[in-house]
């Protein structure tokens, strides 16, 4: 008994009492949900055509990866390794769109925000583009690029670019002019102003935009893959639904949720917190 309590105390010390309580409490609804799900398969309240058993969903991973011949075809996105191919092509598209879209969006946003007249002109463009970005572009993208890889990338890029553009423009505009003028007075060049005033001043807004653009972009990407794609997780769940393979649909939805939550929680949210702490709350002259 004393050994058990010693172990529990050391665990509490290691993770922290409050955090441990939150983790344990938070896992209860998930466990209950899994329990109900399993009970459904055992007692057959709803037929397995509507809700598959947990075992089937687990098996679906291996069924999809069945013909995979090893590591090389897995990396080459071979059609025999369906599961990993779909995951990697979706994630790859997100990364590619982020690499292209984020710098371009930030650069254009800062350029537009530098001149207040220009930014006042471009603000309606940003508002309009953001309100139709994403899903509404899919049909036009299909007309322009056909069904496939380019269309999905275009939709993702479109969503990311406009959100970043808009956010960095507003961020630059919110920086007090005194900073800009003081740097100029002390003999700084335009580039110094960008590097030392606009970029740090707009940083919280940029990072928030980054997190938002990843959230909206991921949703838009899934929809784009369903309608106008030929690979990726969205494509996978949509085609599986058409063939009534519900276990693959469930698997895909869970994978989508887990990937998104992991990215948001362990990459973007800490980044946002750190940036706001480091760069945020810039002193504003009254």
């Amino acid at each position, binding site marked *: 008994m004393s050994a058990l309590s010693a172990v529990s105390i050391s665990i509490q010390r290691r993770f922290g009492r409050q955090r441990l*309580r939150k983790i344990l409490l938070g896992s209860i*609804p998930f466990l209950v949900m899994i329990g109900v799900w399993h009970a459904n398969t055992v007692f057959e309240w709803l037929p397995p055509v509507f809700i598959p058993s947990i075992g089937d969903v687990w098996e679906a991973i291996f069924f999809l990866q069945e013909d995979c011949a090893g590591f090389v075809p897995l990396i080459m996105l071979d059609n025999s390794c369906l599961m990993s191919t779909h995951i990697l092509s979706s994630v790859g598209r997100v990364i590619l769109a982020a690499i292209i879209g984020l710098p371009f969006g930030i650069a254009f946003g800062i350029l537009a925000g530098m001149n207040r007249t220009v930014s006042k002109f471009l603000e309606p463009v940003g508002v309009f583009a953001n309100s*139709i970005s994403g899903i509404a572009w899919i049909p*036009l993208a*299909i007309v322009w690029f056909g069904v496939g890889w380019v269309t999905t990338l275009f939709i993702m890029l479109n969503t990311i670019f406009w959100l970043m553009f808009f956010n960095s423009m507003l961020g630059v505009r919110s920086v007090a002019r005194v900073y800009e003028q003081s740097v100029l007075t002390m003999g700084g060049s335009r580039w110094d102003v960008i590097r030392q005033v606009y970029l740090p001043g707009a940083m919280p807004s940029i990072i928030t935009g980054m997190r938002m653009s990843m959230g909206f972009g991921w949703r838009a990407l899934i929809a784009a893959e369903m309608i106008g794609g030929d690979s990726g997780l969205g494509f996978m769940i949509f085609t599986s639904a058409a063939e009534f393979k519900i276990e693959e649909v469930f698997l895909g939805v869970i994978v989508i949720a887990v990937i998104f939550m992991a990215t948001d929680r362990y990459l973007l949210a800490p980044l946002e917190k750190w940036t706001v702490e480091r760069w945020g709350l810039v002193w504003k002259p009254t």
Partner: protein
Amino acid sequence: MQKKSSVSSLTQPGQRTAFDRFMWQFNQLLKIDAMNLVILVVVILIGWSIISESIPNPARYLPSPLAVVLSSVDMMVKGLLPSYFSDTLTRLVIGSAIGLAAGIPFGLLLGLNRTVADMFHPMMNFFQSVSGIAIFPIVVIWYGNSDMTVLVVILYTSFFPIAFNVLSGVREIPIRYVNAARTLGASRYQVMKDVLFPGAMPHIATGSRLSIGFAWRAVIAGEMLAGRQGLGWMIFTGQDTDSTAEVILGMVMIGLTWIILDHYLLRPIEADTIERWGLVQR
């Protein structure tokens, strides 16, 4: 330096040159948002027309603005545009109304007890992150390509963000307010009515806007995927039948509707609510 002198001359009317006066008037003109908008729209329309004239087969790839206007007139005469528009709007209103009406009390109820709130917070966060579009294939298997499918997806997308936001809002209310009300003999219902609900009000407003925003995207995607008549369906079939003018018309309609909804209805409500109920901790 030049810039500086022109700025100072603006503030001292006596020393203005004719050029300064002209610039001042021009600047005044630029300050009017409507004027900005008109210039912007004209520039965009001209650029669009030039591109559309210079590419081969514009009817397929990028119809001119005139073609889009003509197609809108055509669809108005046939009565298709108003009917699609009202279908989409009806779906949005019904779906998000039910979603909000269910989500706000649900979030408040979960927030009544700290332990319960801590318990459900991760799960609500999980469901909030799974977008409605991702669960679309499951719902299609359950209900087929029917209106029910679109409605369920909208309900799902609007329910979870609002419930999650209300729950977060209730959790952020300082516990001493609840304790103070309890000490003064308030019942559970009174605590909910007088402390939790007003305290969570800013979060309710923000969450509602978020919910309706997600629901709007879900309506468009749902109509495309489930093939129910509406704006989403209009742009999707427009692409199938090679009438790109209809696609662009639909996109513009979708964008304009959301701007009007967001900027003239939801944002003012949110701002007013935050002004009235926000800053609980004074």
